[in-house]
């Protein structure tokens, strides 16, 4: 049967078993690399995407359940040519080692910043708790999120200072 989903602002109609986890549809049908298979159990966060603005485990979400809903992946945050603000902050902090978890980290963190543009350290750590990193890049990921917060404030201040 066909399912229509909206990913990064574009509608896609797919002939797919509606029980298929969204992860495999994103990766195999839409050829989006960002969301990763890590556990298939919602325990590691490597597959994190946004569904209607909220972070979700795409490995546990049947594609049939997200028909007509807004899905955002890390590809929707920016590109290598035009990276989004959070991606720029991760680049500046060199916040990756193997990087397999990083797309999920970015989507998880972006969801926090969308909801709370000025989180404190405890809020950041609590929010990121669902996502695993094995390389031990946590300190840099935390720095990158703090940097993104500061960058946004800087941009805002510059805009407010304009006559």
């Amino acid at each position, binding site marked *: 049967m066909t399912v229509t989903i909206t990913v990064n602002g574009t509608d896609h109609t797919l002939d797919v078993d509606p029980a298929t986890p969204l992860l495999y549809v994103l990766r195999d049908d839409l050829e989006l690399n960002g969301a990763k298979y890590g556990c298939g159990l919602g325990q590691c966060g490597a597959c994190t995407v946004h569904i209607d603005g909220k972070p979700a485990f795409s490995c546990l979400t049947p594609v049939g359940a997200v028909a007509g809903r807004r899905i955002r992946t890390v590809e929707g945050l920016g590109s290598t040519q035009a990276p989004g603000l959070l991606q720029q902050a*991760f680049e500046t902090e060199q916040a990756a080692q193997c990087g397999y978890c990083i797309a999920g980290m970015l989507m998880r963190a972006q969801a926090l910043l969308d909801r709370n543009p000025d989180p404190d350290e405890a809020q950041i750590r609590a929010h990121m708790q669902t996502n695993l990193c094995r390389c031990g890049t946590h300190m840099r990921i935390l720095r990158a999120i703090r940097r993104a917060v500061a960058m946004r404030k800087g941009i805002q201040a510059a805009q407010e200072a304009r006559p």
Partner: protein
Amino acid sequence: MSPTMFPLSRRGFLTGGALTVSFALAPKAFAQLAGGGEGGAGPAVVAPDLKGSLKSSPWLDAWIRIDADGQATVFTGKVELGQGIRTALLQVAAEELDIPPATVTLVTADTDRTPDEGLTAGSHSMQDSGTAIQNAAANVRMLLAAEAAKIWDLPAGQVGTGGDGRLHAPGGRTLSYGEVAARLSLHVQAMPDAPLRRPSDYRTLGRALPRVDIPAKLTGGAAYLHDMRLPGMLHARVVRGPSAGTGLQSPDLDTVARMPGVVKIVWQGGFLAVVAERQWTAIQALRHLQRATYARTTLPPLPADGSGDAVAATLKALPARDIPIMDTSDPAGPAVHSVKARYTRPWISHGSIGPSCAIAQYVDGTMTVWTHSQGTFDVRRVVAELVGLPPEKVHAIHAEGAGCYGQNGADDVAADAAVIAKALPGRPIRLQWMREQEFGWEPLGPGMMTELEAELGADNRIVSWRHAVWSNPHNNRPVGAGGVLAGNEADPPFPAPEGKPIPMPEGDGSRNSNPLYSFANTHVVYHFLKDMPARVSALRSLGAHLNVFSIESMLDELAAAAGIDPLAIRLDHMRDERAREVMQAAADRFGWPTRVKGDGRRGCGMAFARYKNLGAYCAVAMEVEIDRETGRTMVHRAVAAVDCGQPANPDGVRNQIEGALVQSLSWTGHEAVRFAADRRASFDWSSYPILRFDDVPGSVEVVVMDRPGAPFLGTAEAAQGPSAAALANAIADATGVRLRDMPLSPDRLKAALGPV
């Protein structure tokens, strides 16, 4: 390096044979093993006078080619594992060629294109490949200058480079590298003494260049093997019992064969896999087949539980071969304090976030395998034997995977994919293991134990030191079909080779059991256990994790018994100046003299090791706070200092050390593979919890020692042991309770602390 090296000749290294005795005693041979140093088949040495991997691949054009536009292509047999080696090697090449880094393209391990440099393991890549590329590039720069001099009819000494890809002569004349290179053949052997650029002139080496692989990883670019999509690609899943050493009994193949979208069931001997057009179909087929019952096959008994006593009982029940590591006899005064202790480490999972993956395609008698194994050339050897092809008909290409930290499922899954592809010629086969398969089948980091006994004299000098370590082999890297699961399942099976120890000076279970400190009357023995209760192989730092933990814990136990400062007891027994400087640098940055003193709740600890006594020096200090209600340890701050020789990229070094420290806190504080009577019982992140964000340190700071032009020492594994011991020492300082069995988990600490 030699002036600061510990005087070995008076120490009598004994590593189990005349050959290795002379190896250890001869300074010239005091080099690390070639090709990764952790097993693997490795390349043969053909030019022993050259440096690094030039010893096995001496031809310049094997490493560097320069095209007419002046673009350099540099070839390495090492691979990117997330450690940043791609960027570091690129910097080495750019520096020594003296060209902008943007004009360098780096090709990593590919059996058709690059030198065989053995494994990417053992913190060897900078020594092996970095050194080779550095010297090859210096040779190329020398040849270019000589050729330009010939063109200009000048003495070679008057031709220089300017970092711009051009050769410069007095009077402002220049020639591009491309036009000069076009007149040269680089198919010449490297000279051993091509002059290297002076560190004071460095333009690229030693700078914190942004890593070249990170942008794609942040934006969903095709960064991994997992992201490859080849035309006509099919998806496979392999079917086995729940853990290595078990087998499924009568899986229901009939039902799966009828599932729409299933293309083929591959069943050969004990090997079973299902192939489908869509990934989700393959997974559903796998789930159906997994309903079959299973039975444990061979192997010695598994540990009864995760306790230190169970680890010790399991290991001590195995037959041991005793390998003497070190035996010294010195005059010494009587002992005033004596401490005896046992330390244990349970079996630990590599825990890669991405389960292992491979793609294989068999076309016209040639097998192509894309693999994220650490041993691309070994994958070729394994696959060739397994599927019955000559090695030249197997093309193995490295593509990045998730971090592996040793031998995870990468080699097995590559072999699995090749078996399937051979049975289904033509179409590319993508095989990814599932989460529970990675946990269940990968070789684990071996469980280990040590027994130490040390005595301190009245002058606070250590008068005797005994260290015994029990361990399975850490080196079961596959070099033939018997080393992978699919080989053991073939009909007839390729038998798994018997495990062998890695000889000192690198060692495996014995790694870092020989203290770098100068202790009197030192006796170290390795009880090597070849029979493996659980499938094991290399995990980052091998035996150094427990050996350094043991040595550095014991030093603090002695210091506490005698009321000496932990830094002082270390410095008092250390003659290696670089080791002393690293300890002092960490202590200074940490503020060791004014640190929080143990008060029942808060405390500080430090530890040091030089990895393998040959690699990077690393000291770690940390401050912890204990929640006595829960036993939880919070690391408020950690400071590490590292001397890895000339750092290629200081931020890359910091990234590696930060990561190693955090990972070691996870291993040491939280991790243990669980076992049931007949199988592993850790299959997911709830039965194998690792550190999450709320348990990572408040801050981690890394001091990178500046060692201009010093030989590369490698970095990646240096912090595993010191971080583990610093944690134990900080907990002991804070609480007065000494935890000796990993993991130093909240429940164990709470139990040891007793009622609040």
